[in-house]
């Protein structure tokens, strides 16, 4: 249990998707203009992460990894399909996003309308594929650890985008040098936020 909590806290604050790995930057910069939409996107990303990473973990462990197919019989024990993982992961993610989109459209049209084009774009959000690839690289043990990693990464992303959106809303009233307006100042802002987040480095439970 302690281990799970440790992974959870670590993936929120220390290995933060945005501040430590820059994953999901494109939509992070594009959608963080108002707090309302960024909350919606943050929730959607967390949700999709929470579904896709454990599913990809199961696929990786029981189908792709070296020796993963041994449950089919001894002759399959040496197969290593891990070179296929990019393709399978992205297919799972695209399919999951499609399903999530249909579910949200059916049960919450208001949320669906506010997310608009961003929902399908989650499929190509690097944070989602990145989390699956990190899951594969870091070799977590068991589905519980993977799920807590996925949830932590999602919440970390959520906090980062809502924080930036809040700052950008205030920034509208300040006098930024013309060439820095818009994109430039946003980059520097994210950099400063990342420096602040680095203060949390080394936390352990």
């Amino acid at each position, binding site marked *: 249990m302690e281990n799970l909590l440790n992974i959870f806290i670590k993936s929120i604050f220390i290995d933060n998707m945005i501040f430590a790995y*820059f994953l999901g*930057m494109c939509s992070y910069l594009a959608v963080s203009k108002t707090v309302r939409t960024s909350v919606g996107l943050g929730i959607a990303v967390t949700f999709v992460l929470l579904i896709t990473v454990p599913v990809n973990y199961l696929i990786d462990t029981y189908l792709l990894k070296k020796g993963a197919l041994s449950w089919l019989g001894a002759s399959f024990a040496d197969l290593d399909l891990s070179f296929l993982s*990019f393709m399978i992961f992205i297919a799972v993610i*695209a399919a999951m996003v499609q399903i999530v989109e249909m579910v949200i459209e059916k049960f919450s049209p208001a949320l669906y309308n506010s997310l608009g084009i961003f929902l399908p774009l989650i499929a190509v959000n690097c944070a989602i594929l*990145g989390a699956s690839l990190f899951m594969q690289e870091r070799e977590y043990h068991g589905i519980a650890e993977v799920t807590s990693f996925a949830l932590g990464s999602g919440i970390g992303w959520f906090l980062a985008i809502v924080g930036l959106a809040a700052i950008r809303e205030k920034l509208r009233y300040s006098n930024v040098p013309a060439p820095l307006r818009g*994109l430039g100042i946003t980059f520097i802002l994210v950099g400063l936020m990342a420096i602040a987040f680095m203060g949390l480095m080394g936390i352990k439970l």
Partner: protein
Amino acid sequence: MSTPEKEPLLSAKNLKLLTSPVGKNNPITVQVLGICSALAVTVKLKPALVMALSVTIVVAVSNVVISALRSRIPDRIRIIVQLVVIATLVIIVDQVLKAYAFDVSKQLSVFVGLIITNCILMGRLEAFAMSNSPWKSFLDGLGNGAGYGLILIVVGFFRELLGSGTVMGYPVIQKLGLYSAGYENNGMMILPPMALILVGLIIWVQRSRDKSLIENK
């Protein structure tokens, strides 16, 4: 599509496809595409170069493939077709890197795989390759890859020089004897936040030189 067949291969218009993404229409600083990987691989110059090369190859080739197939791809499933083409190319690049440049491939870790979700690819395929001929798409891909690579190399150069005092692993600062004069490396440069701030500064410089790029409030 409307251009006549006899247009020379490198006419002024085609050449512009190649050069405009390097400057005025840069994928990173102007189109805001493909930032994710651009920042993470620039701690050292060498992985940045490899990454720039890989992305350029994948963009150019996938642009050609999709452009050649564009009239046959049903509109509704185009995204998944594009993803499959990109993923196949990325798998090839990944395997080649693992075979011939294993240490760099280890340094790049997940970011080779993340070329698949690099927005430059989808962006260029959607915006350009789906409506232009293969040769033009190829030039567009090369140009965008080069524009992306340029930023990566600039950021990578400064981070490596100021952060570790080397260029491509060659200890420049030490050879110049600056350490004995009291110079110290700026450890901040190696950490992720400085990559963001450097890109912010590059944008600042570019937009001060070219006022037409300045955003309205």
